[in-house]
């Protein structure tokens, strides 16, 4: 699920939601990103990788994996503020636009561990695509945040303008296929952009679909890799009908896929989208899901979306449970080899 606006700017309190929407819109208009940060953070993961800039098949990350550590960190920063003097003041004034705007300029530094995990996911995806025989290019200057949140929150005017810019950039590189890496970006590019940007109708595929199409090229290690409980993200399962592909891939990589209660088309939300408009409600939903994934009885929990990963991880921490939760790409990459 997409994170809520307040989640993205890191506010976990009961705030004047409209002010928050305004700041999100401003941020995106100013920097193209929903959170304060250097646009370079979207592409730095690819340094040192031998990825061509041009090709028929291009990678467009949409930025969610890279942004999530910043979002989490910003939320934690604010939580800490809440305890101190400055926090008290800031929060009292939280409904007021100017104060919130100053909050939105704060620079956050996510933990190295979280940044490294996101980097690993991205690198794993590229390595998997290469192993599947896909010649993938990465036009760095074209990668951007897709603006999905603007759409989800009903900020149509700003979304339309943002979508036009993103689409223009994508069209400028003249690729035949755009490969996306998370469910939200996949959906918004494939189904939503064409409704908002005239004449934009590219072929968009999730890397999971691309890997499944080329599954015969993928070589995995022999032997049993363990029992994996799969958490389908809503947007893959219901909006994009990507259900069999991850199961096929996990199976071929030697994992036994365990279906939790509420899986496939009837998968359950991780609570992400209302995380900070209604933090406690969102947390309850995440905990409900975390528990039922746990009850399925696997060794590892697989997520296919950075938002699910972040929310479920936090839910387990909140429940005092230590669980091995991993992105699909990491699980598959681990098993590559003869």
């Amino acid at each position, binding site marked *: *699920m*997409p994170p809520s606006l307040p989640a993205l700017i890191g506010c976990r309190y*009961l705030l004047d*939601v*409209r*002010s928050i*929407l*305004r700041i999100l*819109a401003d941020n995106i208009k100013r920097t193209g990103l929903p959170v304060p940060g250097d646009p370079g953070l979207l592409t730095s993961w690819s340094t040192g990788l031998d990825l061509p800039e041009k090709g028929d098949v291009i990678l467009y990350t949409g930025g969610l994996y890279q942004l999530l550590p910043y979002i989490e960190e910003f939320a934690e920063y604010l939580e800490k503020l809440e305890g101190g003097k400055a926090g008290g003041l800031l929060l009292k004034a939280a409904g007021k636009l100017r104060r919130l705007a100053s909050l939105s300029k704060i620079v956050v530094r996510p933990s190295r561990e979280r940044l490294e995990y996101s980097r690993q996911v991205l690198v794993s995806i590229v390595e998997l695509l290469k192993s599947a025989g896909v010649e993938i290019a990465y036009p760095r200057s074209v990668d951007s945040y897709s603006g999905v949140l603007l759409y*989800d*929150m*009903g*900020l*149509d005017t700003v979304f339309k303008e943002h979508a036009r810019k993103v689409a223009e950039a994508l069209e400028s590189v003249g690729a035949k296929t755009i490969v996306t890496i998370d469910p939200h970006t996949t959906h918004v590019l494939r189904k939503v952009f064409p409704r908002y940007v005239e004449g934009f109708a590219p072929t968009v595929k999730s890397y999971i679909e691309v890997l499944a199409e080329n599954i015969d090229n993928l070589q995995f290690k022999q032997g049993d890799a363990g029992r994996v409980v799969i958490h389908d993200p*809503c947007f893959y399962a*219901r*909006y994009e009908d990507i259900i069999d592909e991850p199961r096929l891939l996990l199976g071929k990589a030697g994992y036994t896929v365990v279906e939790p209660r509420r899986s496939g*088309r*009837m998968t*359950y*939300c991780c*609570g*992400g*989208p*209302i995380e900070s*408009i*209604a933090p*406690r*409600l969102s947390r*309850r*939903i995440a905990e*409900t*899901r975390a528990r039922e994934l746990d009850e399925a009885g696997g060794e590892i929990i697989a997520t296919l979306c950075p938002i699910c990963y972040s929310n479920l991880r936090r839910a387990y921490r909140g429940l005092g449970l230590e669980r091995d939760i991993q992105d699909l790409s990491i699980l598959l990459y681990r098993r590559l080899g003869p």
Partner: protein
Amino acid sequence: MSIMLEKVLEDIYKGLEDPEFSMAISRSVSNAEGKHLRVKESYPYVEDLRLRVLEAKKKALENIDYYIDQLARSLERNHGVLHIARDRDEAQSLLGDLVGSGKLVIFSKSIVAEELGLREYLESLGNQVWETDLGQLLIQLEHGKPMHTTAPAIHLTIEKAARLVREKLGAELPSSPEPEDIVSAVRRFLREIYYKADVGISGANAVAADTGSIVLVENEGNIRLVTGYPPIHIAVTGIEKIVPSLNDAISYALVQAAYAGLFPPTYLNVISGPSNTADIEHRRVYGAHGPRELHLILIDNGRRQALLDPGLRDHLRCIRCGRCQWECPVWHHTANKWGGPTYGGPMGVLWTAITLGKEAGAELSMLCLGCARCDEVCPMEIPLSSLIRGLKRVYSSKI
């Protein structure tokens, strides 16, 4: 009525902190979730009925004036009377004129009556008014709000229900009562009221334009008594309940029951006019064993305007089966505390937008996850999550 997101959340948080509330809901959800699938597996023809109703509803909504006219003629033929109310005030005053004051009035569960505040209005006129559906009676006793469309009292544990029945009805119950004890205490209490009631008020699951019939589906048997015992029966329902034929209307009620997960329904009632007999010299007499008068009050209250609005129109197909509530992750944790003052859950957000205005619905829409589990199960193929996203646009246009 204005709704504020922050106020709604306050109430939701109260629910989250109430372990009794949370436990009662999660128990009901684990019994009800996915139940429609089991019904459909055992009775595959439900799918044919669903498609029939879907077409019937589309047709009726596209030609609403035609079918209202036809219904009026059919009802007249059957010696029933059709009334049309534009809004809450008109509905109340129409009903007030029909009922008067100083009467004993009984209701069978009707969410439209809740929408229009009819029970409270009749009480304010000096009538004694009782709900007869067990769940709805418990809601009346706690001065609360129905927490689910077909199961209004799901938020009450047995302990809480027993407390209400003991305190408010003076019933004697064992110290740790079984559900049977509560049911029989309520039955004893209501028996005499049925017998003495002057007016019975029901809703309608569906109304057939061609025969003028009102169709009602139920399990408790209270609807039979409410609509069959008192001398006057008044049915109150929205204009969107009209379908072209009696065949459609019966299918409607069956599909509603199937998707509510209550199949087969214990009772299916078809009411096409006041009770009558021609057993003496073949001369027709109205008011044999049942009511001598039948009134149908059709409510607009925002529905016609919604028909003209592409952002709401599809939702008028809703048959109020409550399936979207049973499957919604937000609803699983809030019940009808989310969705508006009368309705709840995904369907509730949209009914609130229809009956109280889009601004009201927009405040509620911001709590929707957009996860689309509701879209997946709705028998009337209503794109609930997209319509709710449309309301978010209304909300965000005000920044």
